[in-house]
Structures are given as C-alpha cells and as structure tokens.
C-alpha cells in the first residue's frame, strides 16, 4: 500500500477516534444532567430523602424514574408526572401501591394560579391524565410483581 494512502487511513482513524471520544464525553455530561434531575425529583417526592430508592425506569414519554418508598404505612411507589391540557401544565407527585392503586396525588407546581387540588378533580382538569396514571399503575404492578421489593 502506498505511504500516502496509509497516512490517509491513519489520519481518518485518528480523527474518528477523537470524535468518538468526544461523543462519549458528551454522553457522560448527560449522565451528570440526568443525576441532577433525579436528585431534584427525589427532593420533590420526599424532601428528607429517607426510604426512597430508584426502583426502575419506565421510558414513558410522560414519566421515567419510579422510586420505591418505604414509609410507616408500608411499601409504595412514587413518581413525578407531568400533565398538560387546555388548562395549562402541572407537575404532580403520585404515590401508588404495589397493586397499582393511587394512594396520593400532590400538586408540585403549575403554570396556572387556579387549579383544583390533588386527586380526581386534578385529573379531570387534564384530559388524558387518567391514561398516564393507568400506564404508571401498570408499570408499578410490573415492578412489584417482578420480585424487586
């Protein structure tokens, strides 16, 4: 193989390696961003952070991280959901039993000043939120049924 061709291949491979490394650095940076988002969620779900552990990641467009919460009243699962509809957007903390039953729905924040409180009135304000909650319940049941608790 002529020298210039070999040099060209080496040149290309060196550039490809450097750019591949840079891609991995960017991916690592995202892990830091993700860890910060997770810490923020943990704080929202349980300000003391006690008894809260990551149980699984759902990969759902509306919710991702689901936490196992060991409280005084037994085991439950907690997650942060985002509802959006004609009335605006709201960030909600939900607590579900291992069977997928809704135990608590707490409004964390919204972009509207007037919104109903937790529970069913809040869900009725956001069409489609029942479906989101059903998906969260399914995922919680799968976590509990998977023998992870």
């Amino acid at each position: 193989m002529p020298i210039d061709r070999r040099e060209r291949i080496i040149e290309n491979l060196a550039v490809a390696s450097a750019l591949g490394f840079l891609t991995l650095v960017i991916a690592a940076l995202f892990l830091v961003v993700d860890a910060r988002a997770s810490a923020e969620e943990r704080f929202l779900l349980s300000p003391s952070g006690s008894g809260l552990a990551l149980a699984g990641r759902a990969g759902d467009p509306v919710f991702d991280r689901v936490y196992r919460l060991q409280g005084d009243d037994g085991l439950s699962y907690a997650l942060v959901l985002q509802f959006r509809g004609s009335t605006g957007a709201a960030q909600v903390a939900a607590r579900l039993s291992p069977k997928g039953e809704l135990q608590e729905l707490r409004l964390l924040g919204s972009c509207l000043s007037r919104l109903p409180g937790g529970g069913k009135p809040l869900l009725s304000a956001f069409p489609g939120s029942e479906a989101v909650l059903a998906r969260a319940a399914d995922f919680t049941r799968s976590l509990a049924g998977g023998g992870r608790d």
Partner: protein
Amino acid sequence: MSRSKALTMADAPYVFNKRTTSSLMWAMALALMPALGWGVYCFGLVATLPVAASICAALAGEAIASGLRRRFTLLDGSAFLTGLLVGMAMPPGISPLIPAAASLFAVLVVKGAFGGLGSNWMNPALAGIAFSLLNWPAQMSAWSLPHQLAGVSAVSGASPLSLARSGSLDFLGAVKTSGLDGTITDGLNRAIFSPLGADLPGGYVDLFIGNKAGAVGELSALLILAASIVLIARRMIRWEIPASIIAAFGILTWTFGGLGMGKGFFEGDILFSLLTGSFLLVTFFMAPDPVTSPSSRLGMIVYGAGVGSLIFLLRAFGSSPEGSAFAVILMNCAVPALARLDVASSRKRGSRLAEAREGGGDNAHR
C-alpha cells in the same frame, strides 16, 4: 509532461459553477443556526448535548467511511449538516447516545455504504431520524415545554401535534399561549383581520415564533422560514419542491383535515398543520436534497406533491402524529421512476420540437 498531467478525467456534468458542494452544505448549516439558537434559548444548554453528540458522531462516521475509501471528506460539510439536522430533530432531554447512533447509521450505512456523498438514494438525515423513531419511540416523543410556557421546572408534555392527534382536545385549546401571543394577536386582529371581518384566534403567533413543545431545532417557524427565503433567494434551494409540498399538504388538510376532529369537509386547520411538527424543517431543508430528489421541474413538482400528500396521509392515519420523515423517504424511493417519467416527457418535447421545425422548414420551403 507526464501522462497523468496531460489527461484530466472527470465525471459529468461538465459545467463550471463557482458554487461547490462544500459551500452549499456550510451555507445550509449556517442558515440553521438561528433556529438552533432559539431552541437552546428555550430549553437551556442541555439542548446542546444531543446536537453536539449527533454532529460528533456524524463526523466520526464520515472519517471512518472516507478512510475506507482512502479519501478525506470531513470538511465538505455534508456530515456536519447531517449531524446537525439529526440533532435538531431530537427532543431536548434525550440521551445523546440516541442521536449519536442515528447519525452513525445515517453516515455509515445510508451514505457511506452506498459510496458516499452523491451516491446515496435516501436522505441520510431523514434515515437517521426514522431509525431513531423506530428504535426509541418513547424517548423520541418525550417533548419538553419551553421555559417561557412551563412555569414549573422540567415540565414535559405532548407536542401540539400529538395533543391534536389525541382528538380529546381542540387544536388550539390545547396550546397554552404566552403574553406575547396575546399582544401580537390583538394587534393583528385590530390592524388586519377585524377590518376584513375575520378573527385570528390566540395560539398561532406562539406556534409561529416557537413557543411550543417540540424538538430542539424545529420550534421556530419564523426562523426556519427566514433561513429558507435566504437560501431560495441565493438559489441554494429550488423553490419547486417546497412549494408543491406545501400546496399538496395544504389542499388535503383544508379539505379532509377537519374530519378527524369531528368537523366537516373544507374545515381543516392549514395554519396549525403547517406550523407544528417537523413539517417546515423537512420541507425546506431535507426534501429538496439535490442528491435524493428529481432534477427536472416536472419531477420536482410530482415529487413535492407526493411528499405533501404522504405527510397528510401519515399524520391522519399513521401510528405516529408526525409523518414527515417517512413521507420523504417513501418519495426518495420513487425518484428513479420520476427520472424515467422526465426522460419520457423530454423525448416527447424533443420530438414535438423536431416536428415543429420540420413543419416550419416545409413552410419556409414552400
């Protein structure tokens, strides 16, 4: 003089043009920067991660592919533009590994495996986007709201297009509007629409400016249109393809678009459909790709009409609210057939011209 210097061999076409492929690619990338900048402003610096990873992976893929061909094509701008377009079509909070994988697929498989720039039959950026839509559908639909609308930290939500698709919500009722939208809408109504007896509802200005949930680089219709106008004026984009896409899509949306929302014929919301999703970015920056689109005017118009019709059909009946990427890829498959159609029409034109000349000659002879 050596033999190699005496003879220079080059592929057709033998037309000299100051505009190189490289200058075209870099100009298009530069034109996209304001739209990308708006996305970063709306979502924060986190939004730069998927774009940066996508560009790096595309360039790395190009270095490998061009190395295998014993060439160095990294600086021609095509891989950079592919990476940029893939990154701009990503939701802002997505893991950078997904756009990186999409860009590698686009550059190595779709472009590199077919012989590099000019030999690919499918638009590489769109192939990369379709690759990630098929492999990571949930992550690809995890949209975030811009901080102007979110009001609370890290609110994610459905894009306006997927809200409209859900059918449970009215098109613009689902879109929360900003204060700026109200001010501009009121001004437009007072100055233009009210004297004409019409009324512009709230929400369209936000969609036009880019105050909506969506991908990093697809938010601002205003900036994408401004960039497109500059590129069309400088003849870097042919106007026939975008014009025919918009015409076909607009007519079909107006005629049948209302049916899915419980309305009648001729009640579809054209403006909403044009300003949401990746429609404008795909129409102006990906569909007119000179490598994967027809080169004749007739071919371009048929191709554009096909893309526009397919976008409407995929949005109305497909499994995903967004169908632009797949529509263009499907029409890329039809480009060889369109080229044959054009050859046939050129032959007909040629024979008609010859007949006319002969007729003219006969008349002159007489």
